[in-house]
């Protein structure tokens, strides 16, 4: 029942999204004439985008249009990304609420009032446009929401299994999810934080673990792997900041003492250690942020680079090698999805555990 519900919702979400598919306009340049640029293609896939590019069909890109939300000096402005007609070079101007917008390298610029088109300086930076605050539902946000819907469906139906059965026996989906939840509890929270205090942090650790994991997995699905949510530094930064906030708030006297006035060492050493410990406080979440970002992005880049070999050498003969290697890396990536989610959670728990540890001298 749960699986079919999940399927229904998932496919209906995809279906609704595809109804927004924008129609490709006449492209001034023929795609086939352009020289293949591996770096551009890879970066395009790894980075965030304002529309969901599914596939090119007969030279026309098939995309899922996503809403663009801008906070300009005149307030909120929204329109669909299809209004840019897949233009990313800043040449197509969208006029909305009396303001002109262009999209250039996945950034939305607001043209100055009197400007008719974008002009660039030597480094290809627009000179007569400014960047409004961009709160668009980008493809990463879109994928993140799909992952949230999936998580909610999976875990709320898991919880319902327990409500339904009186003897609390895990059946169906609960039989599959319960070991994972118990794993987070017994292998991550309990040993890192301790028997007495772990309960308070369980919701955060579980949510972070499954949120990262599912986004890692969704990042590997070929058609939608343009959405590289957990390999985006904004995403990892946010989660790392959450861990930092929780660690800092739960820090007890002992934790702050270890940072500012390390016990058990001579006074000059205390003074010497203080700045190191203060830096360490921030380095911990920064390492969390970089590790997840770098691992997931690197995985995507390797697979895409291997695939690019076929187009760089312009021969199909490379394809078996590329596919074989990409498959190999893909299998490793499947393991990495879980490992990186585990590492992020285990280190978060460790930092929380360090912050809440009681003095033992």
């Amino acid at each position, binding site marked *: 029942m749960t699986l079919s519900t999940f399927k229904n919702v998932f496919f209906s979400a995809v279906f609704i999204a595809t109804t927004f598919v924008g129609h490709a306009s006449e492209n001034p340049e023929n795609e086939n004439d352009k020289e293949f640029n591996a770096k551009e293609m890879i970066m395009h896939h790894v980075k965030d985008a304002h529309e969901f590019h599914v596939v090119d069909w007969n030279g026309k890109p098939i995309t899922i249009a996503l809403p663009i939300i801008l906070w300009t000096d005149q307030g909120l402005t929204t329109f669909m990304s299809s209004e840019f007609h897949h233009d990313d070079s800043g040449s197509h101007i969208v006029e909305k609420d009396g303001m002109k917008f262009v999209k250039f390298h996945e950034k939305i610029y607001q043209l100055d009032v009197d400007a008719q088109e974008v002009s660039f300086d030597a480094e290809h930076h627009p000179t007569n446009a400014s960047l409004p605050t961009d709160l668009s539902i980008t493809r990463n946000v879109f994928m993140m929401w799909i992952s949230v819907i999936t998580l909610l469906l999976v875990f*709320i139906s898991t919880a319902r299994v327990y409500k339904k059965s009186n003897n609390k026996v895990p059946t169906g989906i609960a039989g599959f999810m319960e070991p994972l939840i118990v794993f987070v509890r017994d292998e991550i929270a309990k040993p890192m934080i301790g028997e007495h205090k772990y309960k308070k942090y369980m919701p955060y650790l579980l949510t972070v673990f499954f949120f990262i994991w599912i986004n890692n997995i969704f990042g590997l699905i070929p058609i939608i792997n343009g959405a590289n949510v957990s390999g985006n530094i904004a995403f990892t930064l946010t989660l790392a900041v959450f861990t930092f906030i929780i660690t800092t708030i739960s820090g007890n006297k002992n934790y702050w003492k270890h940072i500012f006035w390390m016990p058990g060492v001579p006074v000059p050493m205390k003074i010497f250690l203080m700045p190191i410990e203060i830096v360490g406080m921030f380095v911990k979440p920064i390492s969390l942020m970089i590790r997840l970002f770098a691992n997931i992005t690197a995985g995507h880049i390797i697979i895409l680079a291997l695939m690019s070999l076929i187009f760089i050498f312009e021969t199909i003969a490379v394809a078996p090698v590329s596919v074989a290697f990409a498959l190999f890396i893909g299998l490793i990536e499947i393991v990495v999805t879980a490992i990186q989610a585990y590492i992020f959670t285990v280190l978060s728990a460790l930092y929380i555990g360090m912050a809440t540890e009681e003095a033992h001298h």
Partner: protein
Amino acid sequence: MDLITPGLGLVFWTVITFLFLLIILKKFAWKPILGAVSDREEGIKKALASAENARKEMENLHADNERILKEARAEREALLKEARDIKVKMIDDAKDEAQAQANKIIEQAQAAIESEKKAAMAELKNHVAGLSIEIAEKVVRAELSNKDKQIQLVESMLGEAKLN
């Protein structure tokens, strides 16, 4: 450079999405699931503990039974011993009494025999005395017809009387 510059929009949406997910999952998933899991673990722990208790109780019961059996056996032993003692004592008593009774009867019999013997002796003496007088009368009658014979008889009788 874009790659490692966090986009404000995504940060904004991630914060909102994550907080939403955290709150909803905490309320509708983690709480009931973790509650159910720990309830079950408690249940298992309790069941194991009660099984252990039952086992101990059984052991105690067994030990009790053993003890009671032992006591009963000891009691039986004691009873048997007492009975045996009583038997021996009774037999001894009976023997003593019988002995005493027998002695008494024997004594009485002896006394009776003695008195009977005395009575018999006395009667015999009387009889002998009567007989003697009778004989003496007859002899005297016979002898008195003949002087010599009378004297001879007296003399022989006297001799006999001496022998007696």
